[in-house]
């Protein structure tokens, strides 16, 4: 079985290295085919491993040593268990789909080969992240996906905003990574190792305060990667990247790494419920916070990005409340429908010549029916309508919030679900139905290549049916993760499900009705609340004014004033003083003998005085 592990892990790397050779050359379809093939191989291997794991296997390999210093001995170790294999399958599946999809999407791009290099590199990093058996291995993947995200956001580097967004993503992630790094250091000095098994075996015997600190620090890292408040701004800006990237990295896989981290370290987090509570609260906050921004945005991709954020909040709620398998389940279903949504958006963008403003679209259903259907499936799945995938995972999260007695969290999530329904169908209505605004603006949209649509089909199917695997899934992953017991009555549960579903469906119907009638009036757009939401609560602006600009000013000050004016000036002053002294005392050397005689006598007097008054210490 080990060879499947290595194949799954290294096939994407091989693909990346292969297409790396072509990066400097003209577009070459071979790179896309080879990388897609290798990703499929990786997917198949992962699937094979999943079946093997299902039969009770847990693979744990140590490939080779990496770092050893002092008491630290850190090998490259990989583990395939019930949790990581789920992630592997999800990641390789979505990435294979995205890779095939990109063959159509990137068809006319001049950096075609480079794109596939990056995608394969990303998958490799992501697999390291999920498969590592220790925290530093996870950190390698963690930073690796960060790098690929940076490269892919800034893929069209000639666009100023793209490279800026890339920098923002990388740097913000770094800020959070620092927290995670500190967590790792604390782990090391507590346990003397980074390996999951050993840490989780001993975590019970360690002071709770330290476990809390570790948990919080790790969660800071997770916040950065999963773009939780206050690190959320990068995710919306990351939409500068090509759309398949947004689908793969910024919806399905990388941003969920934070959730994965919490799930992976569930043995640690379950010891400190207070931290879990913080996580859940923050998750609930972000769920509504992000959804509220999605309500008014006009940018097609940013709406989906905020939706992603909001869904990540849901996952954190589940993970924070100890319902780890539910979080993982939502992570998986979300990966399917959200990437589908993004890829559909990619089709629209292509059709609309990269126009993103949804107010300029409308009535596209006629031109691109298949895309519309797929996106509609994804949207209902996102909203959580029976029998689509989101229904099962999202309801389980709501139920777990209610079950834990955290009613305010439950209520927040409930509101969030309504918002989700609204913005999803606002998008669908504005893009696919209503007036054909695009005609006035001179766009000529068209449906995309058939093979692209075929590639989306698996995601569409999975978004529809994945929910029915809830119980097998639970059984599968709770072999490793803690079980989550619902203590409330079954009738309450059913009642809740009905309540939520009804609410969601009412919102959907109301939205459809409202937009079919022509939408909201323009006056609404001048309301302060609207402006607040539209400007993303002014947070990017605040960051700009409070962090970026002062930092730059301070840096300039440090250089121009402190470094040049003070430190270097002092150094030069010493040198100049010596030089000036020489220059001045040169005048003593006037050549006049009587002056010299006088100096000589001065010297004699000084020496005599020294001889008399100086008493050596010894």
């Amino acid at each position, binding site marked *: 079985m080990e060879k499947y592990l290595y194949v799954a892990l290294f096939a994407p790397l091989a693909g990346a290295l292969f297409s790396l050779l072509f990066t400097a050359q003209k577009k070459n379809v071979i790179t896309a085919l080879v990388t897609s093939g290798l990703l499929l191989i990786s997917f198949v291997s992962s699937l094979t491993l999943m079946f093997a794991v299902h039969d009770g296997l847990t693979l744990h390999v140590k490939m080779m040593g990496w770092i050893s210093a002092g008491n630290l001995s850190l090998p490259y170790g990989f583990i395939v268990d019930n949790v990581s294999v789920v992630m592997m399958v999800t990641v390789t599946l979505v990435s294979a789909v995205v890779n095939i999809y990109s063959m159509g999407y990137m068809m006319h791009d001049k950096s075609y080969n480079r794109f596939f290099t990056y995608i394969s590199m990303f998958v490799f990093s992501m697999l390291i992240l999920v498969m590592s058996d220790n925290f530093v291995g996870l950190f390698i993947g963690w930073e690796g996906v960060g790098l690929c995200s940076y490269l892919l956001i800034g893929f069209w580097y000639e666009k100023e905003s793209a490279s800026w967004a890339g920098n923002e993503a990388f740097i913000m992630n770094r800020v959070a990574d620092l927290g995670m790094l500190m967590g790792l250091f604390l782990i090391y000095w507590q346990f003397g190792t980074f390996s999951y098994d050993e840490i989780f075996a001993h975590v019970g015997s360690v002071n709770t305060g330290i476990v809390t600190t570790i948990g919080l620090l790790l969660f800071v890292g997770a916040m950065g990667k999963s773009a939780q408040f206050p690190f959320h701004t990068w995710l919306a800006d990351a939409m500068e990247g090509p759309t398949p990237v947004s689908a793969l990295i910024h919806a399905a896989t990388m941003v969920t790494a934070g959730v994965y981290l919490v799930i992976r370290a569930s043995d640690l987090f379950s010891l400190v419920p207070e931290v879990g509570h913080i996580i859940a609260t923050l998750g609930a906050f972000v769920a509504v916070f992000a959804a509220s921004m999605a309500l008014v945005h006009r940018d097609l991709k940013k709406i989906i990005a905020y939706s992603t954020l909001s869904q990540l909040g849901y996952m954190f709620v589940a993970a924070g409340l100890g319902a780890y398998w539910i979080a993982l389940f939502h992570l998986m279903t979300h990966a399917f429908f959200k990437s589908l949504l993004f890829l559909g958006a990619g089709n629209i963008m292509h059709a609309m010549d990269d126009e993103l403003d949804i107010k300029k679209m409308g009535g596209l259903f006629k031109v691109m029916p298949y895309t519309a259907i797929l996106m509609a499936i994804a949207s209902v799945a996102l909203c959580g309508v029976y029998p689509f995938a989101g229904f099962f995972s999202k309801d389980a999260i709501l139920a777990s919030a209610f079950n834990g007695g955290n009613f305010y969290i439950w209520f927040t999530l409930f509101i969030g679900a309504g918002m989700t329904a609204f913005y999803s169908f606002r998008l669908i209505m504005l893009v696919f139905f209503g007036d054909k605004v695009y005609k006035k603006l001179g766009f000529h949209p068209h449906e995309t290549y058939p093979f692209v649509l075929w590639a989306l089909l698996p995601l569409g199917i999975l978004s529809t049916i994945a929910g029915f695997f809830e119980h097998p899934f639970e059984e599968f992953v709770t072999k490793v993760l803690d079980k989550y017991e619902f203590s409330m009555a079954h009738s309450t549960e059913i009642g809740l499900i009905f309540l939520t579903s009804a609410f969601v469906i009412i919102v959907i119907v109301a939205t459809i009705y409202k937009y079919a009638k022509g939408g909201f009036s323009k006056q609404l757009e001048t309301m302060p609340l609207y402006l607040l939401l539209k400007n993303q609560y002014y947070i990017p602006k605040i960051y700009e004014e409070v962090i970026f600009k002062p930092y730059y000013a301070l840096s300039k000050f440090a250089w121009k004033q402190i470094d040049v004016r003070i430190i270097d000036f002092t150094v030069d002053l010493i040198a100049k003083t010596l030089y000036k002294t020489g220059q001045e005392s040169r005048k003593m050397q*006037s*050549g*006049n*003998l*009587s002056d010299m005689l006088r100096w000589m006598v001065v010297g004699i007097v000084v020496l005599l005085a020294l001889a008399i008054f100086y008493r050596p210490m010894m």
Partner: protein
Amino acid sequence: MITLTHYLILSGILFSLGIIGVLRRKNLLMLFFSTEILLNAVNVGFVAVSKYYGDLSGQFFALFIISIAASEVAVGLGLLVLWYKRSGTIDLDSLQMMKG
């Protein structure tokens, strides 16, 4: 009773007289005179110490100082004459060639 202190004070007075001369004289010949005073002042001191400590070494030093003074005069006066012939003056301020 005249003690060593008396002699040393005398020596000091003479020495400072010599130094005054060295410092204020601009005429080279007069400068030479002043150096003679300095040497003699020291000689008095040496001999006095020699006497009061019953040690002859002081006298030898004085003796050698005298011989040095004699050589100094011989060479110095020669140079002085030479310089006078060159420049027509023996003023100290005329010797400014060492100006840095």
